[in-house]
């Protein structure tokens, strides 16, 4: 099994990274301390906002297959360094053939949705176990039961649109349930439905940030295994859309992102002071905001620091994997699932089995 290496996160504006032999040298503005980190201990460099990376460092990372991911200061995924396409052409060919076969595609998509709904249910049920209020307990159990019904219904879907329909209905129930898990005394405000591009309240902004991290993990895992992240089964193919990465991250959203978000908010590690409202209509792809509540919300630099540090620990947590019959650190779950998907595409496994905790 691959060793779990560290990721380097750089978020100080104006920082610069250079290659020095086998080490990366980090220069932070207004700080003369000499910092070098051994490259071989890093499996990814993630930069937020305005950070400079030297060409030598980038080409070295491309050669080694080390991930370099650019995120916007608000945590939205911007781009990834893509090294040479590797020679695993038989696997990619099998992937394309499966994509062209509608029935096979639907089967995988159903598994993905089943995994997502199942894991969402688990979050609600765990919440129900942990709460002391009887009404909330019942409400959460009801919502989990509804999710279970939708799960059964979704497995009868005869095309992808129907399947997406069930996914949407479940998400609606699920986010109202997730809102119940948040302590009402949090000063970050409640979760009122999901809003994205841009997130319009602190809770949504935290969710988007964590989804961005989950997504870059899924994307990296697929490339590591040799699958084409742009040919997905549930999400249709579109230029520039890593649909298989989006497919793969579905089953991890509830456990890796949502549950961490709830914990951070309820422990009051992330508070209202860790968010900032963006001035109206800054980003080109934002629709002109109407009022204050329409403005995009982002984590501040301090807020990101807390989230990233907790994420780094969260990734090391061991989870049981039923098929493998052993514990796997969260950071490697996407890799394990990519391998299972690859085995299914090659015809070695009859079905793709999504991962589920417990």
């Amino acid at each position: 099994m691959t060793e779990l290496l560290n990721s380097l996160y750089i978020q100080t504006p104006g920082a610069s990274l250079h290659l020095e032999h086998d080490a990366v040298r980090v220069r932070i503005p207004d700080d003369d301390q000499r910092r070098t980190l051994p490259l071989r201990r890093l499996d990814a460099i993630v930069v937020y906002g305005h950070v400079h990376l030297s060409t030598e460092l980038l080409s070295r990372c491309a050669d080694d297959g080390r991930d370099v991911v650019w995120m916007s200061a608000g945590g939205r995924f911007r781009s990834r360094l893509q090294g040479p396409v590797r020679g695993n052409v038989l696997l990619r060919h099998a992937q394309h053939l499966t994509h062209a076969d509608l029935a096979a595609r639907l089967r995988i998509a159903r598994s993905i949705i089943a995994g997502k709904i199942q894991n969402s249910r688990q979050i609600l049920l765990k919440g129900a176990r942990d709460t002391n209020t009887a009404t909330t307990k019942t409400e959460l159990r009801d919502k989990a039961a509804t999710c279970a019904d939708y799960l059964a219904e979704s497995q009868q879907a005869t095309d992808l649109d129907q399947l997406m329909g069930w996914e949407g209905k479940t998400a609606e129930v699920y986010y109202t349930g997730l809102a119940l898990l948040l302590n009402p005394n949090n000063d970050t405000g409640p979760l009122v439905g999901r809003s994205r591009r841009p997130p319009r309240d602190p809770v949504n902004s935290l969710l988007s940030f964590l989804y961005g991290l989950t997504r870059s993990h899924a994307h990296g895992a697929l490339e590591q295994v040799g699958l084409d992240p742009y040919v997905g089964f549930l999400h249709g193919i579109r230029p520039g859309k890593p649909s298989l990465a989006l497919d793969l991250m579905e089953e991890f959203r509830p456990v890796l992102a949502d549950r961490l978000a709830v914990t951070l908010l309820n422990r009051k590690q992330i508070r209202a002071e860790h968010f900032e409202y963006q001035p109206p209509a800054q980003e080109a792809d934002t629709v002109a905001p109407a009022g204050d509540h329409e403005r995009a919300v982002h984590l501040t630099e301090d807020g990101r620091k807390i989230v990233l540090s907790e994420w780094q620990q969260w990734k090391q947590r061991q989870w049981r994997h039923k098929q493998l019959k052993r514990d796997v650190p969260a950071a490697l779950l996407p890799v394990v699932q990519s391998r299972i998907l690859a085995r299914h595409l090659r015809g070695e496994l009859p079905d793709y089995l999504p991962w589920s905790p417990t």
Partner: protein
Amino acid sequence: MHILLTYDVNTTTPEGQRRLRHVAKLCEGYGQRVQQSVFEIVTDQAGLLTLLDHITRTIADDEDNIRVYRLPAEGFTKVQTLGKAGLIPHNDPLIM
């Protein structure tokens, strides 16, 4: 495994100064400098062998002196420091 590597490279000649820089650069690719010529290194057997091979080919056997200590498991978590030396986080989040 956790490795403590210390080196003494004879720098009286320009050739020696060159060797010193080279050894330091090699070590920076594997671990963290904790004192002028002391490195804390977390690596596996293969990494250690590669590093030692590079160092062997760099140093002058009759002038320089390298010592490699293998610490017990998780040895760096039990380091005591005095003065301005801080603890180097080897597996902690790297956020800057």
